């Protein structure tokens, strides 16, 4: 019998892996993909709980998360193109203008 805990643990694993990716990778696009992975882990918990509790609200939330992810992809990738145009690289270590 697949319980809700199975899904929860799986999404926690995926989320942690996404976190590791965000923290370790240097290529901005890969970092971006790791963020998408984390978002999907969250989506999985939403849908699992929605189905478990018999409530549609969670799935609607997933819908909006997808909308935001799409918007984020559009803007984020445009940012990367703009950045690449200036620096010839999309290494996040180059993104350090915000320091003192």
């Amino acid at each position, binding site marked *: 019998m697949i319980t809700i805990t199975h899904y929860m643990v799986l999404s926690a694993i995926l989320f942690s892996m996404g*976190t590791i990716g*965000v*923290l370790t990778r240097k290529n901005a696009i890969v*970092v971006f993909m790791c963020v998408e992975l984390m978002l999907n882990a969250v989506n999985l918990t939403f849908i699992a709980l929605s189905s478990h509790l018999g409530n549609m609200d969670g799935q609607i939330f997933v819908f909006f998360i997808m909308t935001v992810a799409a918007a984020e992809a559009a803007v984020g990738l445009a940012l990367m193109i703009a950045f690449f145009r200036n620096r010839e690289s999309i290494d*996040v*270590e180059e*993104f*350090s*203008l*915000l*320091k*003192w």
Partner: protein
Amino acid sequence: MYDKLWLIPLFPFLGFLINGLLGKKIKNEKVIGAIGTLAIFSSFIVSCKYFLQLLGDSQKVHEVIVASWMTVAPLQVDWGFLLDPLSGLMMMNVTGLSTLIHLYSIGYMHGEEGYYRFFAYLNLFTFAMLMLVMGNNALVMFVGWEGVGLCSYLLIGYYFEKKSASDAGKKAFVVNRVGDFGFLLGLFTLFWSLGQKGVWTIRFTEISANVHLLENGGLIVTIVTLCFFLGATGKSAQIPLYTWLPDAMEGPTPVSALIHAATMVTAGVYMIGRMNGLFAMAPDTMMVIAIVGGATALFAATIGLAQNDIKRVLAYSTVSQLGYMFLAMGVGAFTAGIFHLLTHAFFKACLFLGSGSVIHGMHHAFHHAHLHDDPQDMRNMGGLRKKMPITFVTFLLSTLAIAGIPFFSGFFSKDEILWWAFASTRGHWALWLVGAIAAGLTAFYMFRLVFMTFFGAQKTDARAKDHIPESPLVITLPLMILAALATFGGLLGVPHVLGNLVGHFPNKLEHFLAPIFEHTQHLHHIEAHGSASTEFSFMAISVAIAVLGISVAWVMYCKNPQLPGKIVAKVPKLHKAIFNKWYIDELYDALFVNPTKRLGTLLWQVFDVRLVDGLVNGVALVVRGTGRVLRHTQTGYTHNYAMSMVLGVVVILAIYVFN
């Protein structure tokens, strides 16, 4: 019936908006002047309509609420207007005189820079003054009260490029603030003390209906009325706050005529009349008012004796005449006070405008001859009666009125005040004596002015002598109208003893104002009692004093022009003191202005520089030091920020886990 009352202040306000916002673009002086004058004239027409309606109405008090202003728990404040005989008279007075003076200004201000500015301010002033007299509650009155103060400041400083003018404006404003402070304190105290009795109101009708709840002659009423009187002394230039008015003569002459003679400065008198029920309950305050009024009348008259600037003489004369009005209010002669307010408005406006006409002519002549003599100094004038016949005649009529020559308007009003000062239940013979002496001095210095200006040899520089013109019709027409009013205006309030002589000629004004004042006077047993023969003898005495003053002036300034110099040589110190206005300005400087300046310097150098700046700089230093240390945590690398977020999540989850 009276629901369009708001039109009256609306027209001047529209005039102000048009001239103020578009005047710079319009440029054409005729259009600007026409807009300004027509705005006031329209409101004069509306005022006439309502005034006539009120005359024929049996109910004499009407309140018109236009809009709600604020509602605070039990207090409801409206934008509302009150039309009763008192405010009706003031309304007519303000709009009528304002129309004439606007008309006059078209000619007088011709060619001045900022012509539109002048008319815009003058319209705004009329608007504010109408709010003051027509407001149905003390807050609307206060709006007008402050508004006229503002316009007074703006117009005194009209020639703001002149330092003396802008200083005079500031002085007027600051001194008026002292008075306004008193007004507000009085208003708050009154509001609070009535509220203690369960009546939260600032509407005049409700105040007068409920004022009996307060203790008659008690401490609260005395404090409230004294505070209000402080407000009145500021606005109406009484001791101790009169010093701004003479300096206010730096403004253009029509301003002096409208604001500093006929309307604004009488606001204090009007306010006391409006709250007569309250003031009558405080006999101590009434006594203070009477004494201050009498003292101001005498004191200002003495200063007026030795001034050489034509407008300054008139300014001190105004202060002195305002003292008379307060004297009247103080002895309970409310009708007489308002009557003198009206007649004074007529003759003093005429005198100021006449002096303006003279100055205009002198200025023209000096300008023509490229001289830089002072066109306001009477020592440069003399013999002008042939050059400016209309100005001379109107000026003479008004001077006769102010001097109290029988059957001119000033005679009736001044005489009634003096009679009440002596015979009223709240009067005293000393008050009468002071008033009578001041009347003699008034007659003297006013005729000194007339003789120095219009009679005798012409002392103007020979080059300018022949170029003094009579003013144009637009200037002389208001003079003629005002002179007619100054001559015949007294017939409104002929005393009963005189009226009885010619077969019951009624005292129309007293009858008209009865709904406002009669109740109060009856309630507090304020009346003038004395036989008709006594009253006649007092009249004779005051006429004799006036004639004496005129004769002395004639001897000194017409017959024997060397006499004044000899007298001055005999008592040089006294003359110097009078000429320097008894050094009151210097005294105030020493007592108030300089200590305040020193305190300011002290606070600046010790408190501000050391403490406040030190605190501010210290905070900045601490922040900078902390920032210098903490900025090393800001690496600029995205990973570090992401890492700290994750660690934050770990910590938050740890709190959950270990709970």
